[in-house]
Structures are given as structure tokens and as C-alpha cells.
């Protein structure tokens, strides 16, 4: 076995252990700077990843038997997760003062969660799927309740623990049923035999239970109920990592299960995916309207975005049925959308992290007068909201364009996809209402209680500019990322 294939994971785990050890010797005053060290380490790993790993189209290398697959898709997701973790770490340094103690552990836990996501992007076996899923979820239990003295944070942690444990139970049960019927845990093996079990109710029931576990990760209806409470209660960097890393890991696993392991079943389930996507979009957007708490608002909005991403999955599922011009358009659009979502959401959460950490409330009104307090933060937040709303020339627009296009291609044969796009459009229009309400508070609120300037450190400025550039680049010059995404999904069926 070529151990180099797992280098991303080794290096990140080693970095996490190094941060834990360094925490013992670094004087307390300087401990929060460990976050910068960790971020620098991750930048190094990212550079190494880009320089050392080059894979041709549809080329797959396996490690641990065939449990672990390194291919274009997993590399795409690995770099994606590392990039997200870098920004989250920089954000956490700003947030460090609000923690009573243990900031070193916080950084280490972020890195361990990251290693879980890296494993998740390479999953080719149900056993590894379960392990990586648990690695992510268990670290997030701690990250969520890291504000040990705040009741809301503890409440969020407990809620996440209970619902997470429940969904883990479903997943294990589902895996047991699937492997019991098909006598294999391996995705390659499963894809060969899935066709003959595609009418077997126990097999299908098992897969459905696995979907429950993944649906919980991506916060799709009807497994979304935890998201708003946990987003609201968790420390802001945790929320940001949950919103982008954990969700993307869920989609990475979903793509692997649906399009590598059991494509025959996925085709049958395209209607189910359409319905899930439609309800998730409507639920997220409609429930976001009355929210006053910013993190809760973004929680509901993240449910809505899970719905848009599921639209891509649904389009890809239907494309399995016929050999069209571009069978992977839905999955490629999903990757593009996630990339844009990364810059957008992390930009928004970085701003929230800076503005809200000294305030008791987290109402939308706390952004009042932001354009006078810090033009950079105001501009970033505005662009993030506009991009989430899907308006050109920002990343969100081109992502939605690709997703809608992928779904409309399927509409020619199944009119359900036309209705799905109609619902998605209704969702977009609804979402403009609450996103623009946030912008309105930033620029023209009547009462501005606090006009003190907000100080931003150099690293956080770099992170914010990076997010802004990312949003614009993906909106104006989409060509490179479109091509990467298209190459990455070649390994799917």
C-alpha cells in the first residue's frame, strides 16, 4: 500500500497533536497565536497538496485495500476543507478571548474535525464512512459547547449530541442492513451487486437509513430541526465550520454513496431527492423570514442552501437514467456552488464573529451603522448577502445558474424538474427579502447606538479580502473552477 496517499490526513493529525503539545509549553498570553501557527501549517499542507498531487481524469488510487480512494473528487474536497479550516482558524484567534480556557484544544479539535472531513472525502467503504462521520460529529459536540459558562452554548451542544447520536444510530443500523443483504461494505463491490438488490425492501430500507444520517449532516428536510438552535448557540467559528465544513462533508459522502456505491438505486430515488430538495428550499427560506437573531437567520439560510445543493444531486440522479451530453452536470454544479458558498459563508461569519463577540444580543440590529464603524466589514457582509441571494456578478449567481441549468436539462424528460426549479426560484425571491433586510440595517438604520470603530487585525483582513476576491472571481471568471469541478466528478457514475 502506498502510504503517501494518506498524507493529507497524517499531516493534519500531526499538526493537531503538535498544537496540543505546544499548548503545554507556550505561555498563556501567547496561546491564542497558536491558531496562526496552525493556519500557517495548513497553508503549507495546501501548497504541498497542490504541488504533490496531480491526477489525471477518472484516475483512482486506493489505500487500505479499497477502503480509501484518492481521486479527483477527493482531492477537490480535501483542498476545499483545508481552505475552509484556514479561514476558520484565523477567525477563532479573534474569538479566543471569549473562551475561559483551553484555546489550544479548540484549535486542535478544529484540526481533528478537519482530518475527519479529509477522510470523508475519500470514503470508499461503509466502515470508513461511519468512522469519518463520527470523527467529525464527535469533535463538533465539543466545539459546539465550548463556551462552557454560557447556557445557550451548552444547550446547543446537548441538542447536537442527542440528535447526532440518534442519527448515528440510524446510520449504523442502515449500514448493518445493507451489508447484511449484500455481504459487502465496499463501494466498488456494492456497485456491482446493487442492481440485483435494487428491489429488495430490506436493502432499500438500509440505504434509506444511511440517507437519514447524511441528511442530518447536511441539514436537509426532514432532518434539519437541530440546525437553527445549534447555529445560534455555538461559538461563531464553530458555527462557520459547521455551516461549510460539516455540510460539505455530508455532500461529499452523499455523492460517494449515491453515485459510486449504489447508482442503480439512486436512479429510482430521483423523485425522492426532488421532493426533499423542494421542501428543504421552501422550509429554509420561509422560516428565515421572521428571524431576528443573525446566526439563527444564517442557520435557516444554510438549510435553504442545502436544498439548492440537493437540487444538483437530484439532477445528477436523473441523469443516470439516460446518456445525455453531460451526465455529471448536476454534481459539477454542486461542487461549484459549494466553492462559492465557502467564500460567501465564511466571509459572513467572519464579520459576525468580529461584530458580535462583545455584544450580549446577536440581533440583526447589532449590525446598525456597520458601514461607519468598519467599511471593510460592511462591504464584506453586503457582498456575502448579495452572493447568497444569487445576484451577479458574485459567486452565488453563477452557482445557481449552473444548478438550474443542470435541473432544467432533466426537465425535458421529467417535468418534475421544472416544478423543482419553479420552487427554487420562489425560494430565491423570498431569500432576497431577508438578505436585503440585513443590508438595510447595515446602511440605513435610524438608530445607531454604537459608533465605535471596530479594529481588525492584519490576518483577519487578509481572510476577508480573500473571501471578497473569491466571491468576485467565481462570479466573473468562472472558467477554471468550472473545469476543476467538471474533472473532479468524472469518477462518479
Amino acid at each position, binding site marked *: 500500500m502506498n502510504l503517501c496517499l494518506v498524507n493529507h490526513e497524517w499531516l493534519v493529525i500531526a499538526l493537531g497533536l503538535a498544537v496540543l503539545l505546544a499548548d503545554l509549553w507556550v505561555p498563556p498570553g501567547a496561546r491564542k497565536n497558536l491558531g496562526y501557527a496552525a493556519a500557517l501549517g495548513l497553508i503549507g499542507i495546501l501548497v504541498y497538496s497542490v504541488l504533490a498531487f496531480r491526477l489525471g481524469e477518472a484516475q483512482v488510487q486506493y489505500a487500505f485495500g479499497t477502503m480509501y480512494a484518492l481521486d479527483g473528487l477527493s482531492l477537490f474536497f480535501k483542498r476545499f476543507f483545508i481552505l475552509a479550516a484556514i479561514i476558520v482558524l484565523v477567525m477563532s484567534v479573534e474569538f479566543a478571548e471569549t473562551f475561559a480556557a483551553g484555546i489550544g484544544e479548540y484549535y486542535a479539535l478544529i484540526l481533528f474535525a478537519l482530518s475527519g472531513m479529509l477522510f470523508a472525502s475519500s470514503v470508499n467503504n461503509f466502515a470508513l464512512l461511519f468512522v469519518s462521520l463520527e470523527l467529525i460529529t464527535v469533535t463538533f459536540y465539543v466545539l459546539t459547547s465550548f463556551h462552557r459558562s454560557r447556557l445557550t452554548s451548552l444547550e446547543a451542544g446537548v441538542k447536537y449530541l442527542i440528535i447526532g447520536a440518534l442519527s448515528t444510530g440510524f446510520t449504523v443500523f442502515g449500514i448493518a442492513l445493507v451489508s447484511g443483504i449484500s455481504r459487502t461494505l465496499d463501494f466498488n463491490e456494492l456497485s456491482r451487486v446493487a442492481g440485483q438488490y435494487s428491489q429488495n425492501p430490506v436493502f432499500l430500507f438500509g440505504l434509506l437509513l444511511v440517507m437519514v444520517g447524511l441528511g442530518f449532516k447536511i441539514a436537509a428536510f426532514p432532518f434539519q430541526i437541530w440546525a437553527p438552535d445549534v447555529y445560534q448557540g455555538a461559538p461563531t467559528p464553530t458555527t462557520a465550520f459547521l455551516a461549510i465544513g460539516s455540510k460539505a462533508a455530508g455532500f461529499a459522502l452523499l455523492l460517494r454513496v449515491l453515485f459510486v456505491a449504489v447508482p442503480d438505486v439512486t436512479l429510482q430515488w430521483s423523485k425522492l431527492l426532488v421532493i426533499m430538495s423542494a421542501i428543504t428550499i421552501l422550509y429554509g427560506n420561509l422560516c428565515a423570514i421572521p428571524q431576528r437573531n443573525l446566526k439563527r437567520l444564517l442557520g435557516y439560510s444554510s438549510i435553504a442552501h442545502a436544498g439548492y445543493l440537493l437540487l444538483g444531486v437530484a439532477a445528477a440522479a436523473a441523469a443516470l437514467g439516460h446518456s445525455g451530453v453531460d451526465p455529471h452536470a448536476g454534481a459539477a454544479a454542486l461542487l461549484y456552488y459549494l466553492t462559492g458558498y465557502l467564500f460567501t459563508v465564511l466571509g459572513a461569519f467572519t464579520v459576525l464573529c468580529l461584530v458580535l463577540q462583545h455584544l450580549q444580543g446577536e440581533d440583526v440590529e447589532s449590525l446598525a451603522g456597520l458601514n461607519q464603524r468598519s467599511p471593510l466589514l460592511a462591504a464584506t457582509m453586503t457582498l456575502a448577502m448579495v452572493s447568497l441571494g444569487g445576484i451577479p456578478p458574485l459567486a452565488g449567481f453563477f452557482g445557481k445558474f449552473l444548478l438550474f441549468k443542470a435541473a*432544467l436539462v432533466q426537465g425535458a424528460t421529467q417535468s418534475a424538474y421544472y416544478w423543482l426549479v419553479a420552487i427554487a426560484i420562489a425560494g430565491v425571491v423570498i431569500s432576497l427579502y431577508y438578505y436585503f433586510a440585513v443590508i438595510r440595517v447595515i446602511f440605513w438604520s435610524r438608530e445607531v447606538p454604537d459608533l465605535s470603530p471596530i479594529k481588525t487585525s492584519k490576518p483577519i483582513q487578509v481572510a476577508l479580502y480573500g473571501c471578497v476576491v473569491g466571491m468576485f472571481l467565481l462570479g466573473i471568471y468562472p472558467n477554471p473552477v468550472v473545469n476543476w469541478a467538471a474533472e473532479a466528478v468524472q469518477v462518479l457514475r
Partner: protein
Amino acid sequence: MSILTYIFGWPLIAALALVFVPRNFRVVMRAVAVAATFISAVLALKMFIQFSGAPAGASGFKFESQVVPWVKSLGIGYHVGVDGINVGLVLMGAIVAFAAACVSWEIKEREKEFYILLLVMAGGILGAFASLDLFLFYFFHELALVPTFIMIGVWGRGLQKNYATFQITLYLSLGALIALVGLIILYVQAGAGTFDIPELIRLSKEKPLLGGAQQQLIFPLLLFGFGILVSLWPFHSWAPLGYGSAPSPTAMLHAGVLKKFGLYGLIRIALPLLPEAARSWMPVVAWLCLGNLVYCGWVAMRQKDFNWLIGYSSVAHMGFVFLGIATLSLIGVTGAVVVMIAHGFLAALTFGLSGYIYQQTGTLEMGQLGGLFRRLPFIGAVLIMAAFAGCGLPGFANFAGEITVFFGAWQSYQVVTILACWGASVVGAIYMLRAIRAMLHGALPGKWATVADASNAWRKAPFVILLAGLLVFGFFPRLLTEKIVPSVNDRVLVTSSK
């Protein structure tokens, strides 16, 4: 690089440059905005004059510029060019943008953001009219549309400002998204793998790209998506409120230029690529346009606020264009394009004038105004001319367009034409002349004794230029029609006549 790239590029570059200008350099910001729009107006005029002599490309477009694909795998490319249909629209748009930048002196707070948004809006509109790529066409339109929302929200006026902002944002976004879905389905089902409009038209000339059922699916999406953007009755309710609340430069650019995007889209995309569906839907459009012409004209008569009145009047004028398009005839569509250009000048002129009066008096309630002609000889005279143009008096470009539309419409829709004539010439004249009487004539209330006329050439320039546009194309409509006719023949009606 074609001259077109510079025409919409200058305002966008100027917008970028303004980001780096410090906030207190007010004069610099104003100068940059006026200069950038002036340059693009001069370039547009130069292009318009050189148009007849310029060599045409393979697809019949002039001043073309096509750059390597932008997103290659999807067939999206940068492609701009003009033919007779959009050359006049680009000229009109550039002139209106210049006039809007000139009247922006009324903006007194947060000028930096205002000028940046104004320039983005101007660049976006001109880019949309210059684009020959479906994606780019939509992209530039949205680029221009979003500043509109923000400008109404921040610099708008009136008590209903917030409501108006949300209404116009949600309503127009819905329209734009419906049109986007229509365009994507068109791209997908045409199966040509390209967003290039001339290429799609060329392919559909050889052999229809879309079957009847597909056309019947796409056409309504385009018609009603674009229809919302153009305030086709009964989707017009955003317009009067939005224009009533918008700062006047925004209203000038939106009512004058941006709104024409939907009409241009119908002429450029829907008619040539979806000819069968167009034929079956056009009687519906003809009757809907009566809603614009007659119903909205009627509503305009009852308005007490001058801005609402001209808002409704601009909705009403869109009826002419829809009627012209509905005829699917050479005369009708040519007339429709002339009306689009004429109404662009007219709408910009009336909103600019109403903005001036609002600036001086702080109100546009016609009941409170009166006798202003004594204090405002120049503004009053221009307003009367604009009102005449709005009634469709010969000598103004509107007359030339409207009469052409009626000639074209008579052959297909006689009843509709009779009602439309009545609505246009009688109802239009009543509300316009009543507004003139209420505002300019009669006794001058004492509180308006200090109202001042446009004093220097700078203040007069935007109005003079817009009025000149109306008069030049009113006396010499041939300048437009001789360019429009061959283009309509070649690229709009070519498939429907077969």
C-alpha cells in the same frame, strides 16, 4: 477591441476608479462620473454616425468584437456588436446616462456610493444592449438592476420608500429569474451548446432549433419574465410606486433605458428563435397592451402626484411597443423600436424635470403647485414640450414611432388599434395637459416665490440634450428607420415569414 467595449467600459472603469477617491473630494467624483458618461455618449454618437458606412460581419452585425470563450465548456463567450435595432438603443442609453449624471447634483449625501452605483448601472445597461451572448446579456442586466434597488432604498424619497424598495426588488427579481429560466431552457433544448445569439439565429434559419411544444413552453416564460421587467399590464404595479420613490437620476435611467431591456430581449431573442409560439401568443399580447394603453392611462388621469402620473404614463407608453411587437410585421416592429428610443428620451426628460421641481419645492403634489411657469420659464417650457411629446404630437420622435406602430397594427388587430388610438391620443392628452395646467399655470402660491429656474448652462444641458434627441428623431425618423428595417428583415421576422 470594438468601440462598443469602450462605450460601456468607460462607466465601469470610472466606477472602479471612484472606489479609490477619498470621500470628501465631491467635485472630483462628480467630474469623473460626468466625464465618463460624456465620453461614452460621444463614442455612441460617433458609432451611430459611422454605422451606415461600417463593414458588417458575417452575421450582419457591425462593430463586432468576439473574444475567446469566457466559460468554454458551456459556450459562453464575450461577444458584442450592433445592428440597426440596438445601435439607436445604445445611443439613447449613453445620452440618458450622461443626462442622469448631470442631474445628480441633487444628491447631497453619500455621494461616493451614489456615483459608483450610477456608473455601474449605466455601464450595465449599455453592456446589456451591446451583448450578443445570452448569458452576458442577462448578466449585464442584473448588474444594472441591483444598483436600482439600493439607490431607491438609500436615496429615495417619500413615506413609502421602504415598501417601494422591497416591492421593486422582489418583483423585478422574480421577473428576471423567470426570464433566466426561459433562457436556460432555450439554451438547453436548442442543443447547440452555445449562448451566442447570432449563431443561434443562424442555426434556426437553416432549420428550426425548437419544436412547437418546446417553443410553447419557453415563450410564455420569456414573455412574462420580460413582461414583468417592462411593466406589461397586469404586472405593472411596481412601476409607479418605484419611480415615485426613486431619486430622479435612477428613475431616468430605469424608466428610460433599463426597462427597454425586456422589450429588446423579446425582439432580439423571442421573435427570431420562437416564431411559432410568438404567432400563437401575439393576439394575447395585443389585448394585454390595451391594459397598458387604456387602463393605465386612465389611472394616470386620477393621479395627484406628478411623479406617479409620469410613472403611469411611462407604463402606458410601453403599450405601443407591445402592440408593435404583437403585429409581427416589418412596419410594426420597426415602429416599436422607434418608440423604445423615443420613450427613452421622453421618460428621462420628464423624470429629470420632475426631479428639478421636487428639488425646488419639496413636493410634487399637483394640488399644491401652480403658476410655476412664472418662476421657471426654461424648465416650464421644456416640460410643456415633453408633455406634447408624451401626447404624441408630430415633430417629436414619439409621434413617428406611434404612427408607424398603428399603421402596422391596423392590418392585424383593428379593434385593438381603434381602442389604442383613443387611449393614446385622448387619454394621454387629457392627463398631460391637466398636469401642465395644474403645475405651471394659474396663480402662484406665495410659498413658491423663491423657486429658481435652471440658471446656468450646466443645469440646462441635460434637458436640452434629451429634448434635442426627441426633436432630431422626430423630424428625421429616417435616421433610425433606415437602419432598423434591414435588421428587422434579416434577423427578427426571417423565420416567421416562411
